[in-house]
């Protein structure tokens, strides 16, 4: 079982990072986010920023949020890879071995999550270039990264569960648009949720993207790590992985 998981997981990683476009976009995208979105408040008076964001450093505020929203979209790639395998018959090649559908699901979910995590060092390097400073506490670093891993794993599992019965190339894109946009804006990732209307605050209060953004923000802004945020993200990851596991066993189409 470990052998099959490892084979398929490594396949996911190698296929992703042997594509020069993926590497290019992975490196360039964080800089673009911080440069374009992060700089949009650069001319705003500090008192206004402090009133709104509780910090005058909007890039430090933004960094955990941008990384959290990036984890939202990684699931799409796992779904696309699964649909490609179905359409080109590779899913059959995998399943005519002692490999279960559940293992395929797990390898795709962890593969996508790993793909998302690669953005962390790139984003941190970009943030350092923009003058952001970080705590050196290994525990807080670990909590932030673990939170992002849980978020990526949860959304990867959700995407894979939703697209398990599909063989249509368009499905992951459509599902991504449907999930990503509302969850990105109805979260504390880009703006403080206290400024939202009450119905959006209600969504943001249960949205795992908010929990990940707040967890990271506590670390980056030095206000302290909230371990309940991490626990919530762990629960989200476990729940989504369990749902994806069951759904894949039952509904993952072979072709």
């Amino acid at each position, binding site marked *: *079982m470990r*052998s*099959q998981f*490892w*084979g*398929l997981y*490594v*396949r996911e990683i*190698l*296929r992703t990072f*042997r594509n020069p476009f993926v590497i290019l976009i992975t490196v360039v995208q964080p800089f673009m986010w911080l440069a374009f979105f992060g700089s949009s408040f650069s001319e705003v008076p500090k008192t206004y920023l402090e009133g709104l964001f509780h910090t005058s450093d909007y890039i430090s505020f933004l960094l955990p949020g941008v990384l959290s929203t990036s984890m939202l979209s990684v699931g799409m790639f796992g779904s696309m890879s699964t649909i490609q395998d179905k*359409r*080109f*018959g*590779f899913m*059959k*090649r*995998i*399943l*005519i*071995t*002692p*490999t*279960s559908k559940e293992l395929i699901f797990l390898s795709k979910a962890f593969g996508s999550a790993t793909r998302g995590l690669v953005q962390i060092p790139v984003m941190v390097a970009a943030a350092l270039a923009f003058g952001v400073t970080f705590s050196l506490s290994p525990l807080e670093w670990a909590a932030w990264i673990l939170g992002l891993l849980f978020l990526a794993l949860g959304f990867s599992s959700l995407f894979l569960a939703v697209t398990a019965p599909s063989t249509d190339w368009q499905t992951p894109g459509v599902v991504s648009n449907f999930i990503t946009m509302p969850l990105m804006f109805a979260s504390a990732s880009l703006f403080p949720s206290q400024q939202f209307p009450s119905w959006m605050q209600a969504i943001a209060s249960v949205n795992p993207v908010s929990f990940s953004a707040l967890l990271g923000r506590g670390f980056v802004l030095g206000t302290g790590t909230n371990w309940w945020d991490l626990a919530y993200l762990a629960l989200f990851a476990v729940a989504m992985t369990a749902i994806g596991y069951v759904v894949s066993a039952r509904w993952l189409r*072979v*072709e």
Partner: protein
Amino acid sequence: MTTSIAIEVHDLSKRYGSGKGRSVLALDHVTLAIPSATIFGLLGPNGAGKTTLIKVLTGISDITAGTARVAGFDVQTESLQERARVGWVAAEVILDDDFSVWENLWLQAKLQDLRGWEERAAQLLKYFSLSDVRDEKTNHLSTGMRKKLEIALALLHQPEVIFMDEPTIGLDVGTRRMLWDIVTGVRKEFGVTILLTTHYIEEADILCDRVAIIDEGRIVAEGSPAELKARVHADLVELELSDGVDAAALRSIPGVQEVKSIGAGWQIRVASSEEFLPRLFAAIPTDHVRKISVEKPSLETVFLDLTGKRIGAEEPMGDIRKFYAQIRRARG
């Protein structure tokens, strides 16, 4: 474990869909017993149920009714054990083209949970003359090499049974013949049972020890190619005439067993075409014959005899992967 019967199928049916008018009976009470270390052909036209049978026997599709055992394991209740003992060669070559030849073997070894697979992999590469390209990406290989690699992948875990689903579809004549040599060589060298599906008459005739003819989900005949051909004690003459002639006139010619109207002509079963043709030309002026063809007993005439239709020319491909496979082959 080696069994004397490698594949045992009993009263197996497979229905796709449900509800009146919306379901299709793809396999209809199929019963087969395939001895170990044989090349067994499943011959039939597109849509006859060949691929469905392979899907069921490899655990990809569920069974609606009946039972099937492969390499001693029930394909439904002991699927994982069964899948550890079978190999699969697809109609289209399915490899991971982001990987090299060796990496494809590595992945297959992982999927089969093999230890110490490297020596076996190296032997297979040598056997298939692929050692020199072991570090090449598979999309740089020729179609023949890709097909060889696919067979090597199927053999890596020393399976008892290999399923080959239309393995030569879309291949040029040279590559097809090379593959026939490989298939017979693999059976001899590795002692595996090979179940292959085909709609090529010649392939079934030359390659297979035994053949089952399948049509509309039913096995209509089974035996060695020689046995099957011996069932048809007749030659087949197809005739097109410029002037009208009635069936009674043709039936009156000695040696004629049966006369059927087909389109603009006639299909005539005769005991011996060598004796029939002089009699035909004595009865009908030669210049009235627009077209004539004679077929000696073959698996095609067996199929025609049993089903009233020909296996026929290739139909348009319903399977998108077969289409992609042909595009890839066309690109060379």
